[in-house]
């Protein structure tokens, strides 16, 4: 039964990924993206990584896609401006398909050791205590660097997105250009 569940989830994931990539309207692809992240977190649950599943939901589904939705709402582009006629460019499609096939072929005839079932994980695999012990023990330094990276991103966005409004404070984007 679990086998079937895994294939179902994997299939749905691929389907939603396809929809995300190829639906014309960005808002639609954003919503499909949320579904895709839900399915990914269930995949993580199947694998046994609980904490990662929740974090996936919290960060990806809960924060990043929110930002994307916000931008789509903010820009409020009229649909044809955003989507535009999505003429499928044959070169990229062909290339993409053949690369997919190539890698699958390599994976398929690769060493048989990859194919047999994975052993059951240790009792504490995936739990948050195990995760945090590994992280603080081995990766404390990159923990700090990640913090610094976040700071940089913050400053970057501060510089890029926000220009101090001129005396006439029209803070909405539409006439930001005159103000800027």
């Amino acid at each position, binding site marked *: 039964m679990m086998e079937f569940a895994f294939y179902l989830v994997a299939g749905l994931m691929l389907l939603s990924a396809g929809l995300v990539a190829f639906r014309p309207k960005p808002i639609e692809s954003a919503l499909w993206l949320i579904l895709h992240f839900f399915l990914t977190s269930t995949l993580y649950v199947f694998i046994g990584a609980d904490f990662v599943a929740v974090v996936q939901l919290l960060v990806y589904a809960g924060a990043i896609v929110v930002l994307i939705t916000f931008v789509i709402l903010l820009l409020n582009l009229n649909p044809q401006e955003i989507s535009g006629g999505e003429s499928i460019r044959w*070169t*990229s499609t062909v*290339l993409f398909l053949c*690369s997919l096939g*190539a*890698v699958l072929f*390599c994976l398929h005839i*690769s060493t048989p050791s990859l194919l047999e079932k994975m052993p059951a994980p240790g009792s504490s695999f995936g739990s948050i205590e195990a995760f945090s012990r590994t992280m603080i023990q081995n990766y404390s330094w990159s923990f700090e660097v990640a913090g610094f990276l976040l700071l940089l991103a913050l400053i970057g966005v501060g510089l890029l997105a926000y220009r101090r409004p001129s005396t006439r404070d029209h803070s909405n984007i539409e006439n930001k250009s005159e103000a800027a």
Partner: protein
Amino acid sequence: MDASLKILSGVAVILPLLGSCIWFWAKNKIGEKITGLAATGTLVISFICCLTLFWQIESSARVEFFSWIWMGSSELVNFSFLLDPLSLALGLIVTGVGSLIHLYATGYMHGDEGFGRFFSYLNLFIFAMLMLIWSDSMPGIFMGWEGVGLCSYLLISFWFSDEANATAGKKAFIVNRVGDFGFLVAMFCIFKAFGTLSIPEVLAIVNSGNLDIVQVGWTQWACLGLVLGAAGKSAQIPLYVWLPDAMAGPTPVSALIHAATMVTAGVYLCCRLQPLFFLNPGVMELIAYIGGLTALFAASIAIFQNDIKKVLAYSTISQLGYMFLAVGLAAPVAAYFHLMTHAFFKALLFLGAGSVIHGLHHEQDMRKMGGLRKQMPITFWTMTIGVLAIAGTPPFAGFFSKDEILHIVSGSHRGLLSNIAFVTAFMTAFYMGRLWIMTFFGKSRGHREAHESPWSMTAVLCVLAALSAFGGLLNWPELWGGNAWLEHYLGQVVTQMDVGHGADALEDSLKLAGFSSLMGLGALGLAWWKYRDYQTQDFRSPAFNLFKNKYYIDEFYDAVIVRNLKRSGEFLWKVVDQGILDGTLNGLAYQAKKTSERFRRLQNGLLQGYALWIWLGVLILMISAWSVR
């Protein structure tokens, strides 16, 4: 004794050089008159030095100044003078005639804004000429040779503002350079053969006689080179074209340089290195024939020239032809004698023509002259003496020197050359008569009133007239009771072919002299008959055009040499330089640009294009990593 010689010769040479530097800017400082007199003064002083040297030195003396140490091995080139009869005689003529012409020039050039410049060039010329005839080493001579060439160029194109003068100066300079090339080749061969360039040493080795075949071979080439150099400098057959054009310069220049001094450098050179020429008689023969042909050729052209200075120029060429003829027939003394007399009467003729031109306000075409007998009496009488002298009438200098040469030529039993010599003598007399009659007799065709030249010019004419009248005394032949002073004087240095002193020799010489003087007078009578009432017409025969246009030699040279040079230059410039060198360079640059252009298109700013390439790269990486597994 040596110290005094050193001082005298030093002063004689250095003074003109210093002078040339001073006059250049002195003109507007100390006025025209004083500059002219001062320049003439320097010449007179150096003439006096020459005279004293002439008296003091018995046979020959060698004055050492310094050696160009820094010019490699010291003995190769040293700055010293060889004062022997040859160089002293010519030195006297150069400084003497030079000072006379300087005096004449003060009058002639009066009022010309380049007055100071003119005299500085003349003094420089004198310095160079003295260096040429006095220095004892070939490089020294060559230095003089070049200096003279330079001054002739500067003086010919004196009025450089006029295009024709400038091109004439260039033409003279280039043709001289061709001659100098010959001279250089000669120097190299001599150095190759004898290892030294000092003339006394070379002559000593040659006279010592023990030369191997190789050295003789080299001397042959040297002689050929010398002949080419002499022909270039003395305007002989192949390289004479520059002299007629050189008339573009002021008349004193023509008189001094293109009549008396520079053109004789060739003759002096051949006499100086005569032992060398004796080694290869073929070259002597060549010189003789060149001389003869040039004489005949130039005389034929002179007959039909209407410009007075052109006529005199061609007559100079033919007289030089005579001198070369004499040198060719191993009669350097005769050549020298003719050279000296020629200097006197040709300078006289030129200065006379100068005063005529001066009088007629720069009118040079004889067809516009005529009847100047009454208006310019002194010029007329001095010119008559000159014409008679050159025509070879007995009492004058020309008769003796030309007769000497004719005597030698007939004595050498060369039928063709003697006939040429006699015909040329007749033609010389005829065209000089024509000139004489057309300028001074008949109605005055020129519409301007001619006035006599000032005293400074006429006095010089008289002196020269006297010299050309009594010039013959220098070498009165013994056959006629003379002491042949020049022959003995020069005999110390050069060997003269002996014509024989027997009784029949006297008889022959008297017959020859009578025949030549009769021929001269006959030619003058013919000219008188032909041009007495000369209006405008001239001979109308088809051959006339040929003579009139100087056998189209200039056009021929132009077509053969100049145009080819230009074309080859063009070819080198266009094909080789532009085509090959620049071509390859620009080609490479162009190719680089083309290929970079193509690559530039790869980077077309499309974000997804770049992503595609990255994706391909990753793919290839994966597959290769997997395959190498």
